C-alpha cells in the first residue's frame, strides 16, 4: 500500500504523459481535479492487485471523448460519482476498489478523483500500460471481461446504462452517446471481481507513472540526464536522438493521423527516421525498416527537459530522444495483437518485440 498525496499527482501527470506514447490527452484538467479531491478528502491509498480479496468488486473510472472538448467544457465534478453509484445499483453490490483503465495520458488522474471522493482504495494497475484510442483495447477484453454494464454520465445529470454483445459494440454505442453528451463523458465500466483483476490487470502502472514523473523531476533538480534516468527506470531501449524535420497531419476516420520525419543527431547523425501516429505513436522506422511497432511503446522525450512530447505538439526543429518500451507481455499474445497490433491499425507489418528488433 502506498499513499498518494497532492504532490504525487504532479509526478503521476508527468509520468502518464511518457506512458501516453504521444496521445491519451493532456492530464492537466484531471490532475487539477484529483489534487482538489485529495485536498478535500485526504490522500488516496494505492494498493497492489494481490491485496484485493477474490470477491472484491473493482471498476475502472475514465473520461471518454475529445481532448479538445475536455479543455473547454470542464466537468461538473459529480459525473464520475454518479456513474459509480449507478453501476453499483445495477450490479446490486458496492464497488470496493477503483481501477485505472488507461495509465497513459489524462485517464491516469481520473481514478484518483473518484477514489478520493468515495474513500476507496485505487488498484495499482490498469488495462493498457500505456494509451490506446478505443474502449475495447484493454487487457480486460482478452480475459473475457465485458465492458458492460457500463454507465456514462454527463455534466447535466444524464446517465446512460449500456448493455452490449461485445466490447467493440460498447465502443461504437458509447462513442455516439459521448457526442450527444457534448463530446465528453465520464464512465464506469469493466466491473470485475478481485480474482479476475489479478489475471487481467497490467500491474504496477499507477506507481510506475508516479515513479517516472519523480525520476524526471529529481534528475532535473540534480542536473542529471532525465532521459537516461527514465530509460533505466522503465527498461527502455533508446531508439535514436534526432531532430524533427517535417510533420504531416490529417484527420482520417476520427483519428489524428500523420507521420513525422526525423534526422539523426549526435551519435545518430546521418540516419533518417519516421514515426507514424494515430492519436498515439504506433510505428517507428529507420528508412523503411521497422524499429518498433505497437503494442510496444514509442515515446518521444524532449532532449533537454526529458518531458514527453505529444502528437499535437510535434514541430519542426524539436530535438528528441525516442525510446522503445516493451509492452506488457499480454499484448504480445495472438489475442493481444489482434486487438492492438500493427495490423489492427492498418499497417502491413508483423509485430516483433522491440528488444529483438533493436537489441539491447
Amino acid at each position, binding site marked *: 500500500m502506498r499513499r498518494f498525496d497532492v504532490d504525487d499527482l504532479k509526478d503521476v501527470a508527468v509520468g502518464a504523459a511518457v506512458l501516453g506514447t504521444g496521445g491519451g490527452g493532456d492530464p492537466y*484538467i484531471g490532475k*487539477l*481535479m484529483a489534487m*482538489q479531491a485529495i485536498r478535500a478528502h485526504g490522500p488516496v491509498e494505492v494498493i497492489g492487485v494481490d491485496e484485493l480479496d477474490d470477491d472484491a468488486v473493482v471498476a475502472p473510472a475514465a473520461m471518454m*471523448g*475529445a*481532448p*479538445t*472538448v475536455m*479543455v*473547454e*467544457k*470542464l*466537468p*461538473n*465534478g459529480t459525473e464520475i460519482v454518479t456513474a459509480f453509484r449507478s453501476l453499483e445499483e445495477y450490479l446490486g453490490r458496492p464497488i470496493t476498489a477503483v481501477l485505472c483503465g488507461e495509465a497513459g495520458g489524462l485517464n491516469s488522474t481520473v481514478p484518483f478523483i473518484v477514489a478520493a471522493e468515495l474513500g476507496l482504495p485505487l488498484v495499482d494497475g490498469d488495462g493498457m500500460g500505456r494509451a490506446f484510442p478505443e474502449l475495447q483495447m484493454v487487457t480486460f477484453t482478452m480475459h473475457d471481461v465485458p465492458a458492460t454494464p457500463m454507465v456514462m454520465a454527463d*455534466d*447535466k*445529470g444524464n446517465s446512460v446504462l449500456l448493455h452490449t454483445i461485445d466490447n467493440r459494440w460498447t465502443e461504437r454505442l458509447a462513442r455516439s452517446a459521448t*457526442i450527444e453528451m*457534448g*463530446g465528453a463523458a465520464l464512465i464506469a465500466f469493466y466491473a470485475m471481481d478481485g480474482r479476475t483483476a489479478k489475471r487481467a490487470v497490467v500491474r504496477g502502472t499507477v506507481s510506475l507513472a508516479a515513479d517516472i514523473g519523480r525520476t524526471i523531476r529529481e534528475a532535473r533538480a540534480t542536473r542529471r540526464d532525465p532521459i537516461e534516468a527514465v530509460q533505466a527506470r522503465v527498461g527502455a531501449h533508446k531508439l535514436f536522438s534526432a*531532430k524533427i*524535420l517535417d510533420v504531416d497531419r*490529417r*484527420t482520417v476516420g*476520427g*483519428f*489524428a493521423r500523420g507521420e513525422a520525419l526525423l*534526422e539523426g543527431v549526435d551519435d545518430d547523425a546521418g540516419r533518417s527516421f519516421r514515426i507514424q501516429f494515430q*492519436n498515439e505513436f504506433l510505428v517507428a522506422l529507420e528508412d523503411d525498416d521497422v524499429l518498433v511497432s505497437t503494442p510496444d511503446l514509442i515515446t518521444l522525450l524532449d532532449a*533537454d527537459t526529458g518531458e514527453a512530447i505529444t502528437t499535437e*505538439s510535434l*514541430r*519542426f*526543429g*524539436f*530535438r528528441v530522444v525516442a525510446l522503445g518500451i516493451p509492452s506488457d507481455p499480454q499484448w504480445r499474445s495472438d489475442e493481444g495483437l489482434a486487438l492492438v497490433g500493427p495490423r489492427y491499425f492498418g499497417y502491413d507489418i508483423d509485430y516483433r518485440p522491440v528488444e529483438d528488433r533493436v537489441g539491447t
Partner: protein
Amino acid sequence: MIRIGIDVGGTNTDAVVMSDRSVLHSVKTATTEDVMSGVLAALQGVLEGSSIDRSEVDVVMIGTTHFTNAVVQRRDLAPTAAVRLGLPATASLVPMVDWPVDLRESIGNHAYLAHGGHEFDGREISALDPEELRRIAADIAAKGIRTVAVSSVFSPVNTEMEKRARDILQESLPDAHFTLSSEIGRIGLLERENAAIMNACLRDLSRKTVRAFREALAGAGLDAPFFLTQNDGTLMSAETAEAFPVLTFASGPTNSMRGAAFLSGIKDAIVIDVGGTTTDIGALVSGFPREASVAVEVGGVRTNFRMPDVFSIGLGGGSRVTIDPVRVGPQSVGYRLTQEAHVFGGEVLTATDVAVAAGRANIGDPERVRTVDAVLVQEALAVMVAMVERAVERMRLTPEPVPVIVVGGGSILVPDRVGDLNVIRPEHFAVANAVGAAIAQISGEVDRVFSLAEMPRDEAVARAKAEAIERAIQAGADQDSTQVVDVDDVPLAYLPGNATRIRVKAVGDLSVA
C-alpha cells in the same frame, strides 16, 4: 513620416526617431519608478539628438513590460470579480483554481459560476438566467468591486452569451469595467479565463499608465497620436491598450525580433537577443515572430495569449564562468557587470571576460584577462557556442540555411557562424526593441471552429480571411496594405461533422490620416 519608437523595459527605457525607413537618432535612459519621467527623458533625449521639430512627429509607438511586471510582482492589481457561464458543466474547477495563492488573494478571489455556455457543436449547455446574473451583480456591487471578467464555455465559437451576460450585469454595475474572455483568448477555458481575469485586474493600472504616457508626450511638447505594441508585434490604439493591457505581455521580445528584422532587412531568420543574464532566441516568419503553440505562464498563471515562441537560455554578458566541468551561466552578475567582471577590475570571471580574452571583443581593460588560462578560454567559448547552437537548432524553421540576426548588448558572445548558419549584426542592434516598436503594424485575427458539414473548407477559410482583414482595418490599418499573413486550420479529431478550427491573421501598415 517621422515616428518615435519607445521601449519601456524593466531596466532601460530606449527611444529612437525614424524618418520613414532610416533611424535618425537613438538614446538609452534608465526606467523610472513612475514610468512617466523616464519616458519623458527618453523623448526629450531623442528629439534633441535628432534635431527634429516636435510638430514634424507623426506618431509615437510605445512598447512596455510594465503590465507583465505588475502581475509578476503582484502590485497595483485591482479587486476583480470572475463570472463564468457554463453551469451545470465546469463546476469541478472554479475560476482561478490553478493560480498561485498570493496572486489570487491579491485580487480578492471573487469567483462566480452561472448558467449558460455552449457545446462544441453550438448547442446551449443551459439557458442564460438573468435573475441569477442580477443576484451576482448585486453581490459584486455590495463588495465594491469595479472590474469584472466574464467567461463562457466555447465562447470563441459563439460570443453571444458573454455579451448578453455583460449587458445584464452592467445594468446593476454601471461604473464597472468588463473584460470578455472571447475578446482575448482561444479554446481552453481555464487559460482564456485566466487571461480575461488578469486583464480585468490590470484595468486601473492601464488607465493610469496610458495617462502617464499621454502626459509624457504632452510634457515633451508632442501632440502626435500614440499607440502601444502588443504581443504579436502589431499596434493597438491607446484606448485598446487601456481596455486590454494583457495584450502587451510579451511585447518586449517581440519588439526586439521585429526590430532585428527591420534593421537587417531580413524577414525569415532566427533572432538572438543577448542580454546581461539571459539570451532569448526566437524565429521570424515573414517578418513576424513565430507564436508559441503551448500554454505560456505569466506570473505563475497558465494562459493562451498570442505570445512569441521564445526559447531562453541562461547565457548573457554577465554569466559566470565556472570550472570542473567548465560551465557558463545560468548564474550572472547581471547589472553589476561593470564592477564585477575581470575586464572592469572585478573578481568574477564572466562570459564577457572570455569573449575579450579570446579577442572577440574589446571591452573594459583587455590587459586584465591576459592571465586567464588559454585552454579555459577555449573550453568556455566552446560551451557558449554549443549553448547557442543548440538553442538556434531548436528554433530553426526549415532545414534550409536561414540567417541568424544578433541584437542586444551582449551580442559579442555570439560567433560569426552558428553551426552552418551565417550571423548578421545590424546597425543600431542595441536599440532593436525601440526600433521594433517604431515599425509595428496593425493586425486583425480570427480563431474559430467551423463545421465543414455546413460549408466547404474553402468557403470557411475565405470567410475567416475576410473577417480578419475587416478587423485589421477597424483597428486602424490602411486598407490597401492589409493582407493575410497566416492561415492555419486544425481538424478537430474525434468530432463528427468535420469540425475544423481556423486561425487567420491579417496585417497592414498603420493608416496615418
